[in-house]
């Protein structure tokens, strides 16, 4: 059975979640590998969420937020950008390919962009193949 | 009297020939006993310069003025103009005329004090009396506009009586499957609002009721409502439906636009509010001929169905009335060259809306219309799927022989129907015959381009006639852009019918005393900047009853009407038709 990746996506309630809904109302088709979790702001996404996702066997993590300057809470997305750069460096040491996580700014009107992003990321993850973190963790324990 | 009210008294100069007199003790009396905050003593310049007068009233923030002195009514008119310019009632200017005996003798001084006292109390009471306009509101018609208006007012903490002619609220919108341009389902938008109306403590819902008489003055309307019987008690009915199963009488369901049959005792549609059964008086055998009565026997709740219920008249006091009685679709049978009524597979857009609806006769499948054994036309799932569908725009609209106005929504809902057909029958060929494609609102033009890209053929040219030739619907159209005659054989034709004023519109306009335009739509006093205000203060119009419009505009107009009501209740006075300074009187 062809490998169907599982990607955990953290979407901020005001911009990217609305964008995903817009992709829905405009009936844009994209690959069903995304598992969307809604948070109030991209600033709320802390590194533990991303590592927990990998620990639970996710093949990729997508973090979405509002465009810089559009954040409903003024600065949440700047904080998320800073944390993301840190996590990107950090997961290399844990042996996770950096392409498995991705940060994207999606505004409330960019439904089409969200659909393309989902397909694109699924494709990159398919090329990388399933993540082996979960298997390694089970061997260690 | 709300804290925003301030009374001012102006002692006017006596007319020429009288010498001005010292009024100091009179002023002391007024200030100490009557506690009038603003006292102006014999201002010589005040009434000669209009802007100075306006400036003084605005500076002191006066909301009502007493003109005292000898024959002060000389100045009443100019002060009234100033007050109306500031948005207050002309009646807020009161006269205290001391008569000719200006000289302050002992005997006259006493009755001058009494006069002032009486005038002052009259002004205070008047503010009291006019502030007590009825806080309740009556909303006639429970379509999306009526529902929205009721919710706006009820959520502001005021009581609303929602009067609906049919058995359930929801109006025409409840019949639609999807709504343009976002294609979210009508039920998902309407049902929560209906639930909120059904459960709202401040909204009293009266179904099967009609307004029969309105009297009283603006702000204190006494409305008599005639509630025809449902024959099923709303409180005790548990909506189990056994009565409907056993009922022997079957009639065509007007909610499903005649595409399905329903029993004499029925629930209009599964998500109806109130979610209870009712009996159709004309169809029920017991009410017509006194036979049957099966429903009473099978009903698990004793005494729930009372077949002897009689219509009753209820008197309601209301300060404002919002009319939102919607519209009536154009009877497609009036144009016989389209063959509606003669050929089964010529449907009106409302019938198709029901056919394609998940809760419709075939669960959303598009099938041919066939006639069952008893001769009434029904839709069944296995009667085959049409492959070529034509949608004809402007049926009955933009036509001097029927309705010269444009019904504004048919272009968009035709595009939506074309999309829904494309979604359900990907292989079908869909044609739309239109004159001008009117996709004017937010997101409408993008929706129009998207439908064209989906392969729906847009043909500029109105079909003239439809004839059934050996099973196919033969269509003659001139394709103007391609410069050719089109002779096509279709499987199904959808007529995009326009909107007409509701049947009871004329009756309602007479009862309420509001005027209608030449087509029968309610007329707003100043359509350009205030489309909800009618010629009678306290009566507002909202939604399609004022003119064809789509759902977002109806919702906005309903809220606008609610604004008028809230404003009149919260500001304790009823602004009559637009308060304009004299110079701008509208002819």
């Amino acid at each position, binding site marked *: 059975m062809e490998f169907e990746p599982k990607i955990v996506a953290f979407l901020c309630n005001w911009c990217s979640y609305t964008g995903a809904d817009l992709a829905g109302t405009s009936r844009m088709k994209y690959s069903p590998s995304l598992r969307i979790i809604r948070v109030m702001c991209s600033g709320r996404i802390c590194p533990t969420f991303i590592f927990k996702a990998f620990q639970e066997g996710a093949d990729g993590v997508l973090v979405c937020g509002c465009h810089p300057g559009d954040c409903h809470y003024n600065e949440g997305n700047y904080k998320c950008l800073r944390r993301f750069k840190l996590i990107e460096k950090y997961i290399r040491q844990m042996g996770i390919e950096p392409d498995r996580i991705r940060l994207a700014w999606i505004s409330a009107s960019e439904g089409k962009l969200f659909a393309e992003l989902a397909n694109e990321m699924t494709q990159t993850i398919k090329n990388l193949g399933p993540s082996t973190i979960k298997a390694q963790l089970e061997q260690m324990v | 009297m709300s804290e925003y009210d301030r009374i001012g008294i102006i002692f006017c100069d006596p007319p020429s020939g009288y010498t001005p007199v010292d009024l100091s003790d009179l002023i002391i009396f007024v200030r100490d006993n009557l506690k009038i905050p603003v006292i102006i003593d014999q201002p010589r310049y005040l009434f000669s310069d209009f802007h100075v007068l306006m400036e003084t009233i605005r500076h002191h923030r006066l909301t009502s003025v007493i003109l005292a002195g000898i024959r002060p009514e000389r100045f009443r008119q100019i002060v009234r103009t100033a007050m109306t310019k500031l948005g207050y009632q002309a009646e807020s200017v009161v006269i205290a005329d001391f008569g000719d005996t200006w000289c302050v003798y002992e005997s006259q001084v006493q009755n001058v004090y009494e006069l002032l006292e009486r005038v002052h109390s009259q002004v205070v009471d008047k503010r009291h009396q006019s502030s007590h306009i009825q806080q309740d509101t009556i909303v006639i018609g429970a379509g999306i506009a009526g529902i929205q208006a009721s919710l706006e007012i009820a959520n502001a903490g005021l009581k609303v009586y929602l009067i609906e002619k049919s058995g359930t609220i929801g109006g025409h919108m409840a019949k639609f499957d999807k709504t343009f341009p976002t294609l979210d389902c009508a039920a998902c938008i309407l049902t929560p609002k209906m639930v909120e109306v059904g459960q709202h403590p401040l909204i009293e819902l009266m179904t099967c009721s009609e307004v029969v008489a309105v009297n009283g003055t603006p702000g204190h309307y006494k409305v008599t409502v005639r509630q025809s019987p449902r024959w099923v008690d709303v409180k005790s009915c548990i909506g189990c439906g056994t009565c409907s199963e056993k009922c022997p009488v079957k009639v065509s369901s007007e909610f499903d636009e005649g595409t399905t049959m329903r029993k004499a005792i029925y629930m209009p549609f599964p998500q109806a509010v109130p979610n209870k059964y009712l009996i159709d008086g004309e169809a029920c055998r017991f009410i017509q001929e006194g036979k049957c009565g099966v429903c009473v026997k099978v009903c698990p709740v004793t005494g729930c169905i009372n077949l002897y219920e009689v219509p009753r008249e209820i008197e309601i006091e209301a300060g404002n009335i919002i009319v939102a009685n919607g519209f009536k679709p154009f009877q497609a049978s009036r144009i016989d*060259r389209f063959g509606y009524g003669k050929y089964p597979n010529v449907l009106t857009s409302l019938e198709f809306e029901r056919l394609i609806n998940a809760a419709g006769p075939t669960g959303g499948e598009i099938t041919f219309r066939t006639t069952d054994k008893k001769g009434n036309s029904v839709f069944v799932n296995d009667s085959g799927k049409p492959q070529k569908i034509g949608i004809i725009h*402007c049926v009955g609209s*933009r*036509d*001097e*022989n029927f309705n010269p106005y444009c019904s504004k929504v048919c272009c968009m809902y035709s595009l939506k129907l074309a999309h829904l057909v494309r979604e359900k029958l990907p292989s079908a060929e869909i*044609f739309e015959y239109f*004159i*001008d494609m009117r996709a004017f609102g937010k997101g409408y033009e993008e929706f129009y381009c998207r439908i064209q890209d989906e392969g729906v*053929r847009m043909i*500029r*040219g*109105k*079909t*003239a*006639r439809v004839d059934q030739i050996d099973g196919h619907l033969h269509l*003659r*159209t*001139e*394709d*103007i852009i*391609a*410069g*050719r*005659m*089109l*002779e*096509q*054989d279709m499987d199904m034709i959808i007529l995009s019918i326009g909107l007409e004023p509701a049947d009871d519109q004329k009756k309602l306009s007479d009862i309420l005393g509001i005027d209608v335009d030449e087509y029968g739509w309610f007329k707003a006093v100043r359509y350009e900047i205030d489309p909800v205000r009618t010629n009678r203060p306290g009566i507002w119009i909202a939604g399609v009853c004022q003119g064809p419009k789509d759902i977002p505009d109806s919702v906005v107009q309903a809220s606008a009407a609610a604004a008028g009501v809230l404003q009149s209740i919260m500001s304790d006075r009823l602004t009559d038709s637009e308060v304009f300074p004299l110079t701008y009187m509208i002819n």
Partner: protein
Amino acid sequence: MISRVDPEFKQELHKYGLREWNECFHCGNCTAICPLTKDDNLFPRRGIRLAQMGLKKQLVSSVDPWLCYYCGECTETCPRNANPGELMMVLRRYLTSCYDWTGISRLFYTRKIWELAAIILIALGVIISFLVFLPPSPDLFSKPQAFINEQGGVMINSLANGISASRFVQLIEYGDLLMAILVAGFLISNIFHMFYRVILSDRNLKFPFYSYFTEFWSLIYNFVTQARFSKCDNRTYWIGHLLVMTGYTIMFTLIVAFLKEFQIEEIKPWYHWQRLLGYYSTFGILFFLIYTFIGRIRKTDLKMQFSHPSDWMFIVLLFFTAVTGILIHIFRVSGLPAATYFTYLIHLAFLVPMIVIEVPFSKWSHLAYRPFAVYFDRLRRAGQNRQSIVELTPAI
């Protein structure tokens, strides 16, 4: 090629009757409802469009108006009440004035008094020349029996003073021939002008030469049967039209070609071919005239509502010609020579202007233009050997 829009054209067209047709918003309902429209003949909408835009060249080169027989269904169902049917009538009048290279018919259509003046002028000319060449013999009143033949009828040819019967008929024949040549000359030149405008001026229209002849049968067939007229729902018009057309043609051929056999001295029995033909054509003409008079006055039917003076002129002249013709016959049979002579004179006074004015320059010219229009249309169709460029819909 680019053509320039001309808003003035509307004013010019208004002179040919009917002012309100400009609010047509091109819904295509009239073209769709008309039973006669086909792919290239998208009238009446195309005609309205060209008239609205003032594209004179395209208007004159299109034969569409001649293919419409004014059943009135388009005007009935027009959503904007823009009278497409009546506009076709107006365009026919306009085209008549365009085909006429002399400009006389434009004069008649645009200024009605000219037409009236021309008719009166010709009538007077006929009367005077008749009185000069064929003066009434003096004893018409004193000795009427001199002109009665053995059956008691008037010997029509010998009424003139000092002119033998055969000479009388010969002179009338010369007059008829002269008139016929005149009329035919104008008519044929106008038809050729129409041919030039419709076919020749269209550079990129090429069609095989032989189709001139293969399509020619359509000209005759249509001239005789007006087959297209029968397709309109209301057929009484078609029958009425057939009657008057056959009646008129018979009378015309009798007078011009067979005058000698027709206008003879002795009174033939009623079953004689000459009488029968006479009765048939008068009946045909009278039936049509009465039907049209009632229609135009009561204005019940749509096509009768807007009567242009040129319509009335033509019917009135035909009516008087027919009436005087009948009177001649009655007076002849009842033996009143004077009455016969003078009615004969009046008969000619109505007949000649009708033929000289109406046929080439006014409404009557449609007898030629309509069949030719069908003929030219078939020529154009043969030329384009129509394959639809835009395969939009498989039009079954």
